[in-house]
C-alpha cells in the first residue's frame, strides 16, 4: 500500500512538473535549469539520514560525509548561482532605480 502511494505521488509530481515547465519562456531557461538543479539537491535529505545514523562502520561514515558534501555543494551552489543570475534579469522599470 505504501509503495502504491509513493508511486502515485511520483506520477502526479511528474505531470505537475511538465505543466509547470512548459509555461517558462525560453529567456529564463538557464535560471530554470540551475534552479531546478538546486531542487534536485533535495537528495541532501537522504544524505542527512546517511551521515546522521551514527558511525557503526568507517565505510558508512565516509559515504555519509561524502554524500553530505556533494549534496551541500549542489544545494548551496545551485541556489546562489540562480539568485545571482535572476537578479540580472531586469526590465526597463528595474533599470531606472
Amino acid at each position: 500500500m505504501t509503495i502504491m502511494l509513493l508511486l502515485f505521488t511520483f506520477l502526479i509530481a511528474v505531470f505537475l512538473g511538465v505543466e509547470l515547465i512548459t509555461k517558462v519562456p525560453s529567456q529564463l531557461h538557464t535560471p530554470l535549469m540551475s534552479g531546478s538543479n538546486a531542487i534536485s539537491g533535495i537528495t541532501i535529505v537522504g544524505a542527512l539520514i546517511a551521515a546522521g545514523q551514527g558511525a557503526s562502520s568507517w565505510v558508512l561514515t565516509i559515504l555519509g560525509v561524502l554524500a553530505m558534501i556533494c549534496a551541500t555543494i549542489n544545494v548551496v551552489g545551485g541556489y546562489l548561482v540562480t539568485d545571482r543570475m535572476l537578479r540580472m534579469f531586469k526590465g526597463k522599470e528595474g533599470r531606472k532605480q
Partner: protein
Amino acid sequence: MITLIEIAYMAAAVLFIFGLKMLSKPTTAVRGNLLSALGMFLAIAATLLDKQIISFEWIIVGVLIGAVIGGIAALRVPMTSMPGFVAFFNGTGGLASLLVGWSDYHVRFTGSGYGPLDTDTFVLLLATFLAILIGGVTFSGSMIAYAKLEEKMNSKPLLFKGQQAVNALILIGIVSLCILFILFPNAGVLYALFLLGIVLALILGVLVTIPIGGADMPVVISLLNSYSGMAACAAGFVLGNTVLIVAGSLVGASGIILTSIMCKAMNRSLINVLFSGFGASAGSVSASAQKGDAKSLTPEDAYFVLEAASSVVFVPGYGMAVAQAQHAVKELGDLLQKNGAEVKYAIHPVAGRMPGHMNVLLAEANVPYEQLVEMDDINPIIDTVDVCIVIGANDVVNPAAREDEKSPIYGMPIINVDMARCCFVIKRSMASGFAGIDNPLFFKENTRMVFGDAKAVITALVNEFKSS
C-alpha cells in the same frame, strides 16, 4: 498518524512547486527561487528532527565543507562560465544520490539483510540500483560536460571504432547486474557486483557524453539535469521519503521538457543528438557548391549603414560568449537607440551552450528583457528590419536549413536574417560553424561580412558612433 516531519515535507513540496511556477516570469523569478530555497531549508530542518539521526558531528563537517566549496564557486564564477558550472553542480547532486543509495545498501547488507522478494522489496531493490545507476551516469556525464564546456578537454565530439558496441555491452552488463541484484540481494558476492555496477554506471556516463559536440551541449545539459532529478527520486523510493520523490520527479520532468524543446529547436531527435557525433566530420559536408563571392565591409563603412538604419536586430551566438562581447554589444545597442533606431535582440533557442545562455549574458550586460525577442516573434517581421547584425552565430542563421533539402540541418528552424533588408555577419573568418556546413548566408546579395573578433568589431563601431 501524521507527524510534524511529514507536514514539513508537504510544505516543502508546495514551496518547490510555487517556486518553479514563479520562475516563469522575470518579475517573480527571484522570489520564486527564494521560496524554493526556503522549501529546501524546511525539508533539511525537518529531517534533522528525524529519530534516525543520532549523530550530528559528521553532518556539520559535511555541510561546512560543501557550503564553502559551493558558495565560493557560485559567487566567483563569471557569467560566461555558467553552463559549465551548472553541469558541475548537477554532477555533485548525482554523486550524492549514488552515495545515498550505496549507504542504504551497506546498512541493509551488513545488517539484517533484505526480506523475501515481494512487491515492497522489489521496488526497494530496483530503486537502490537505479539510484546508483542514474546517480553515477549523472555524475560522470556532468563532469565530462563541465570539462568540455570549460575547455578543459576538446569540445569536439569524440568517436572511436566500436563505440556503440562498447556502450551496448556495458548496458547489457548493467541490466544483468540489476537482475542478479534483485534476485539474490543477500548473497556474499553481491557486494562486489554492486560496486562493479557503480563502476559501470560511471563509465557509461563518460561514454555517452564524449561523442557529443559543443553546440549540442544544451540538449545534454538538460538531459543530465533531468537525470539528477530522477536519481534523487530513486533515492526517495529507497528511503520511502515523499519529499525526495516529489522534488526529484519535478526536476526529472522539467529536464525532459527542456530536452525536447532543445531537440525541436534543432529539428533532430534525441537519439540523433546522443549517438550521431554530429559535427565530428567538420568541413567534409558541403551540400551545395557556393557561387559568387562574399562581400566584406570595414567597420567604418558598416557605421554609415547603421547610422542611417531605423531598426536594428542583433542575433548573438556562442561566438559572442567566447569574445565576451556582450557589454560592447549593449553599448552599441544604446548608441543606436539614441540615434533613433529601434533595437532588438533576437535569440535562437539553441544559441550558445545551454538553454537560454544568450539571455543570461545580455541580462548581465544590463539589456532590459523587453528588448529580447524569441525566434518565432522576430521571423514574421524580419523583412521590415533594416539591419541584422549576426555576432558569432552561424548554424542558427543558416538559410540552407530552409532552402537546401540536402543539407544536414535542413528543416531546423532558423532566424531568417537573410530576409532582412541588410545583414552584417561579424566573424573571424569564412570558416564553417560547428555543424561543419557551408553557410550560403555569407554569399547572399544583401549580406556583408565584417571580419574580425566580435568584441573588437563592435568596439570599433561604438568608437565610430562616439567620434562623429
